[in-house]
Structure formats: structure tokens, C-alpha cells
């Protein structure tokens, strides 16, 4: 047996407390608990087989009544997948194979299996501050009972019973929470706009489109905390007066889709979503909508059009969705992580939340650390953490004796921050001043083996390929900018063309219709700001200092014939 299923409806805080107590009691019968990460990364290296093998092993040993093996969530260091945790021993095993389970089970009360041990006391784990991912993978993502036992849905029932919708909005405003989808718009302010709008019907949408290359924070939060995201949405629905919600997830996230779908069904079954939630006044129905994976569908107006069944094309704002969104009705749209922050805010209070972070950027933020760094993976840190702490303490620095060159934040609309700004703090304003962007939390580290022109070209290629084509500057401008960067990497660029590239950046940034085009020039602008010498090396000397466009010291130009245009 891996979990216990309740059948009863939960119609009050008392019911909820009772279910929680019973579940905790049930869990407590087991002397040992083992969690096998069933996140996407771990499942892709057969953590499912490890889970099954553990269960069989325990059964074979006749220890079913003392050991409980549960599916768990992401530990963050997915590169060491599959991961197995034994919380009572405070142990984390890495790269576990089904053949290892016998040893692990035998070691439950005794000496750990040292060859599989993962250092879970090091900086990677200890320097994080987990608010959104606070269960550290030690929660069965598919079990509403476990979620309730861990305090789930208390915030919702508390809000419904003790707060007026206004109070909820005020609490959010006091917390200082800002949108985690990229731009950092104050969440409380957005909620109050939707709350004030007068309309028959309002909607709440959770934006889980997450299309930045290399980003997987939202996927992980949805996979591990589907109930928490739904609970946050329900609190939002209460605050703004909405009765219908949508989770818009890209279809490339099958596990997240499955977990959210199951979570909706299970919350409905127990009266925690649907009509008269907790026997109180709130009716809130949630449906899931799948996106086909276009990056631009993460843009709120395009996303809304996609839910309506139209093409995912952005529309000029204003009107903002808060005034006229889905089907022309006031619509609250927030990112997955924004909603996931609501529950801890209501549970622990806005004052507590506001103690985390910087004066203008409160709370924590999840990041997907990747690139040329020792510890890659999913991390959560308080805003205000310095880039240096992030990259050198948590990330463990650059491997193989290479030298750090830049860190890219903010996805395709972001920028590259060089060594001299490593002490800058991660918060909305500072990143903006550095020509970068918070974005949804991608963080790509680059070392001396990365060519910054090539990096800019990569992001431009992404934007050009993802441009929806609706507006001229983005549709044509990104294609031109990409071609210009391409010519520079081939040694065919000229100084005149570089000037043209810069002026195109300006045009596209200020004339494009939506954030995709407006942000597309940023990687070029920021690499030009901090790494202009690399551009010049390509254009003037026809060399690539990083040895990417051609081996170091060699001419990057292809042998050309006089015929080429």
C-alpha cells in the first residue's frame, strides 16, 4: 500500500483538521518512510522502476507494516536522478537503480549506503530558502490526503471563513508579492483591479505555458504542488469574485497535465473545488487547457485567445485582461508560481512574507540553474540573493577549471550579466538596470568557452522562430537581426551593419506589439553593452575569442567564391 484514500466531503475547517489528523496518524504507523522522486527528470531515468522495486523489496521482506514508500517530488538536483530520500535519516540517495533497493531497504535503520549518498548538507541545499517548494520533494504530489496532512487547504478555508474578499486583496498587497511570470507586476494591485471590475462573470487563469528555453520551474511546481496551485487559484477566485478558472499548460508537460487533472478531480470530489467550497459561498470550477507549445501563447492576451479557441496571437493592450479578458470579461491571469505563493502568504501572514526579500522584491523565487555550472537544477532563493551566491555557493561555480564569463537571466527577453556585476542582487529592479530581466526564472551560466555573439544569435533565432508574425517589426526585424548576427559570426559583418543592428534593436524594442518583440533585442543589447569587444573581434579581426565560431586564432570566414552575393 502506498497511499490511503479518503472518501468524505470536507465541508468545514473542522473536517479538514480531522482528515489531516487521521492522515498523520496513518503515516505515523510507519517507522520508516522513503520517497522516490517521480518528477519528470527522475521518471525519465526510470525512477518508476525504482519505486516499484522498493515496494516489492519491502513486501518480500515482510516489512509492509513498518516501511512506507511514496512517490515524491523534485529535489532540485535533477542531474543526479533518480533520487530517493529517507527523511528520518536525513539521507538522499542519488542515481539509484532498481538493483540498489535491497541495500537501501536494509540500511533503513542502520548504516547508509555510502556509495549512493548525495551530499544534501552542502551549499546547494543549505543556502536555499524554500517557500514555494517547501516540502523539498517529501510530499506525494498525487495524494490530496498527504497535502491536507501537510496543512493543505487550510489557507483557503481560513480565507473563506475569516477574510472578506477585500481583506484577501489587502493581504496580498501587504505581502509585496509580485508576478512571477516575468514582469513583476504587483499581484495585489492586479487582484484589486479585477476585484473592482463589475461584471456578471469573471475568470481566473493560471499561466503555465512556460516556454523559455531551458526553464522548468513552473513545470516542477505544477508537478509537485498541483493542489497548492489550485488552492491559490481558489483564494484568488474568492478575492476577485470569479467562479471559473483555467490552468493553461503546454501539452509538452504531460506529467504536469496529468497531475493537475487528477488534482482538480480529487479536489472536486472532496468539496474543495466546485460549488459551495467548504460549505461556504465560493463556487469555483477549474478546467485545464492545453497549449500547443508556441512561446507566444504565454503572453496573456495570446493565451486568452487560445483558450477562446482562436489563434494564439497577442492583442494590443489596453484593454488589459483585468478589464476585458477571457470572452471579454474581467480576468485575473497569474503565473503558476505567483499562485503557489498565495497559500504561504495567507497561512503565515503578509508580514511574515514581507520579511523575505528586498524592500521592493519580496519573497523567494525559483530558478532553473543551467549551463556551465557544477550544480544544475531547480533552486529557490530569497530575492536579494546575489548572483555570486547563486552561482558560486549554490551552483558550485564553473566546472573544469574554466573561467566564469556571464550569466543569462530572463529567457529570450533577458540579458547577459558579466563578472563585474556578480555582486548585484537578484531582484526585479537590479536585473532591469543591468539590461536583463527577472523573467520566469531561467538562469544560464556561461564560461570562457561561450561566444557572446553566438549566444545573442541563439536567442534571436529563438525569438524569430517564435514570433507569431502579427506585427511587422517583430516578424521581419527578428529575421533581419538574426541574419546580421549570423553574418557577424561568419566574419561577414561590417561595422556599418553593426550600426544597423543596433538601430534595428531600437526599432523592434519600441514598436513591437507584444513583449516577445519588445524583449527580443535585449540579448543583443546586453551583449553589446558588456561584450562589445567580442563583436569587434568577429567584425574587425575575423576571430572568435571563445573559439566557438572557429578555433581560437583561426579566421572565422568560410572560404568564399567571388560569386556569393
Amino acid at each position, binding site marked *: 500500500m502506498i497511499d490511503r484514500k479518503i472518501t468524505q466531503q470536507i465541508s468545514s475547517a473542522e473536517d479538514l483538521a480531522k482528515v489531516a489528523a487521521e492522515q498523520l496518524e496513518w503515516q505515523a504507523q510507519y517507522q520508516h518512510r522513503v520517497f522516490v522522486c517521480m518528477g519528470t527528470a527522475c521518471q525519465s531515468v526510470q525512477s518508476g522502476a525504482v519505486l516499484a522495486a522498493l515496494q516489492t523489496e519491502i513486501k518480500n521482506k515482510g516489512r509492509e507494516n513498518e516501511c512506507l514508500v511514496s512517490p515524491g517530488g523534485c529535489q532540485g538536483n535533477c542531474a543526479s536522478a533518480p533520487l530517493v530520500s529517507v527523511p528520518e535519516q536525513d539521507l538522499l540517495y542519488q542515481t539509484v537503480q532498481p538493483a540498489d533497493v535491497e541495500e537501501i531497504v536494509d540500511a533503513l535503520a542502520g548504516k547508509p549506503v555510502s556509495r549512493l549518498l548525495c551530499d544534501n548538507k552542502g551549499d546547494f541545499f543549505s543556502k536555499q530558502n524554500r517557500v514555494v517548494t517547501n516540502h523539498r520533494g517529501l510530499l506525494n504530489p498525487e495524494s490530496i490526503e498527504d497535502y491536507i496532512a501537510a496543512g493543505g487547504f487550510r489557507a483557503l478555508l481560513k480565507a473563506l471563513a475569516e477574510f472578506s474578499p477585500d481583506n484577501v486583496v489587502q493581504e496580498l498587497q501587504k505581502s509585496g508579492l509580485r508576478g512571477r511570470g516575468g514582469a513583476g507586476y504587483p499581484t495585489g494591485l492586479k487582484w484589486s483591479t479585477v476585484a473592482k471590475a463589475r461584471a456578471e462573470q469573471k475568470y481566473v487563469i493560471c499561466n503555465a505555458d512556460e516556454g523559455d528555453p531551458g526553464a522548468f520551474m513552473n513545470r516542477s511546481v505544477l508537478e509537485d504542488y498541483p493542489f497548492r496551485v489550485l488552492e491559490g487559484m481558489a483564494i484568488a477566485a474568492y478575492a476577485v469574485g470569479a467562479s471559473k478558472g483555467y490552468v493553461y499548460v503546454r501539452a509538452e508537460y504531460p506529467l504536469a497535465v496529468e497531475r493537475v487533472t487528477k488534482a482538480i478531480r480529487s479536489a472536486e470530489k472532496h468539496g474543495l473545488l466546485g460549488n459551495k467550497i467548504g460549505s461556504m459561498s465560493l463556487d469555483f470550477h477549474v478546467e485545464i487547457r492545453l497549449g500547443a507549445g508556441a512561446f507566444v501563447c504565454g503572453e496573456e492576451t495570446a493565451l486568452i485567445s487560445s483558450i477562446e479557441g482562436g489563434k494564439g496571437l497577442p492583442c494590443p493592450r489596453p484593454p488589459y485582461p483585468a478589464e476585458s479578458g477571457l470572452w471579454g470579461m474581467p480576468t485575473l491571469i497569474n503565473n503558476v508560481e505567483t499562485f503557489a505563493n498565495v497559500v504561504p502568504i495567507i497561512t503565515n501572514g503578509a508580514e511574515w512574507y514581507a520579511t523575505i526579500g528586498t524592500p521592493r522584491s519580496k519573497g523567494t523565487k525559483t530558478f532553473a540553474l543551467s549551463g556551465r555550472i557544477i550544480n544544475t537544477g531547480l533552486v529557490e532563493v530569497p530575492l536579494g540573493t546575489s548572483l555570486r551566491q547563486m552561482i558560486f555557493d549554490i551552483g558550485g561555480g564553473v566546472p573544469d577549471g574554466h573561467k566564469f564569463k556571464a550569466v543569462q537571466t530572463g529567457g529570450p527577453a533577458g540579458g547577459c550579466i558579466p563578472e563585474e556585476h556578480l555582486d548585484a542582487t537578484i531582484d526585479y529592479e537590479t536585473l532591469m538596470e543591468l539590461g536583463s530581466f527577472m523573467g520566469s526564472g531561467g538562469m544560464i551560466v556561461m564560461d570562457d568557452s561561450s561566444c557572446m555573439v553566438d549566444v545573442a544569435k541563439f536567442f534571436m533565432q529563438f525569438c524569430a522562430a517564435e514570433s507569431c*508574425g502579427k506585427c511587422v517589426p517583430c*516578424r521581419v526585424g527578428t529575421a533581419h537581426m538574426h541574419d546580421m548576427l549570423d553574418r557577424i559570426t561568419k566574419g561577414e559583418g561590417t561595422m556599418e551593419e553593426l550600426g544597423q543592428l543596433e538601430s534595428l534593436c531600437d526599432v523592434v524594442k519600441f514598436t513591437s506589439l507584444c513583449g516577445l518583440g519588445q524583449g527580443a533585442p535585449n540579448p543583443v543589447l546586453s551583449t553589446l553593452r558588456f561584450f562589445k569587444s567580442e563583436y569587434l573581434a568577429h567584425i574587425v579581426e575575423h576571430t572568435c575569442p571563445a573559439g566557438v565560431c572557429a578555433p581560437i586564432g583561426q579566421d572565422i570566414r568560410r572560404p568564399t567564391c567571388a560569386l556569393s552575393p
Partner: protein
Amino acid sequence: MRVVTLKINDQEMSGREDEDILHVAREHGIEIPTLCQLDGISEWGGCRLCLVEIEGSAKLSAACVTKVSEGMVVNTESERLSGYRKTIVEMLFTEGNHICSVCVSNNNCELQDMSSDLKIDHISLPYRYPARTVDASHDLFIFDANRCILCTRCVRVCDQVEGAHTWDIAGRGIQSQLISDLHQPWGESDSCTSCGKCVEACPTGALFEKGKAAGEMVKDPKFLVYLADMKAEKS
């Protein structure tokens, strides 16, 4: 509907609060360049030529989709704006294959007019020379994709006025293209009623009548306003 007062290019004026900057400006004799906008069909906001500066806003706003409001101060002409507009028009010239001298719409083309109005005497961006096709399968009309600027005026007029929705845009980014029905030849379209509205609405020589030689295609999409008014009266 409330009437608001605002200032455009230092000129005091008033407009209804449901009107956009473009129309209020026009009513007062101030022309703002447009390509995708056409009276009688919905706004699109894609060509970005009508961008204007609004005092107090760091962003530029598309006049065709931005409603006027009380006390608004708008500026429709500046060196910066005309620079942007020039580059956008240049982009359109490089995106397709525009050879005005042999075009049916030579001297009757909104894109060509725009290049002249904006004093564009050459194209400084590199031409892209895309391989595009000409669809002459329709009995009456021809679609030459080389001259299509993807303004979607045909798409909207066919959908919103004729109710046929023959045209749409397929693909994205620089690969976007205008297609009829499910990407079949226009002449084989089941939905097209051959009404010719798209041809009249098209600002360039991309859609034209068969048998027209260079410079012979003259269009007048003003009938759309009449149709829209009729429709409004009826309902």
C-alpha cells in the same frame, strides 16, 4: 457616450471616449500613417505605422487601437516616430519581392504611397528575396504573394463583411503566409463567393483582377464603410 477633450499635436480637440486616437485625429485633419487599418472592418494593430507618443507614457501606442481619454496629450509626428515608420516600411519592402515598375498596382498602392510619404528613396536593410508563389487559379482574381504585406485586411473583410472566411494566415514569424481555405488553390476554394471584397480591401498589388496590366489596378475600399453603416442601422 462621454465626450473627452484632448490635445493632438498641440491642437485642442474633443472626441467620444469610445473613439480611437486615429479617428479623432482624422476628424480634425491630422493624418497618421496606417496600413493595416481599414474603416469598415475590425482593428488589427499589426503594421505599427500609426504609433504615436502619448505624454506620460514611456511606450508608444498604436493610434488605431488606443482609445482617447480625458486630458490625453498626443504627438503624432517626431523624428523618432518617422525614423521608426521608415524602418518598418523598409522591412515590408525587404520581406517580399516588390518590383513596383511591373506591378499592377504601380501608382495605386498604399505601400508605395507610404514609401513616398516617408521620403524613402532606397532600402537600406538587406532584401530577403523569399521564394513566393502566384496563385492564378481563381476565375476572376489573382493572388501574388510576392506583394503581400500580411496586413490581414483581406482576411478580415472576407470574414467580417462577406462572412466567407476564405483567407487566413498560416505559419508564424517570417514564415507567415496568406492561405485560402485549408491551403488549397484559391480557385478551388469552397468558401469563396467571388465577391471581390478582398481585392478592393488589399492595400497593395497582392490581390488583383485578372487581365489587369502593370499600373492598371485601381482599388477603392470605401464601400466598406457604407456596408458597415448599413449593417449598424439594421441591427
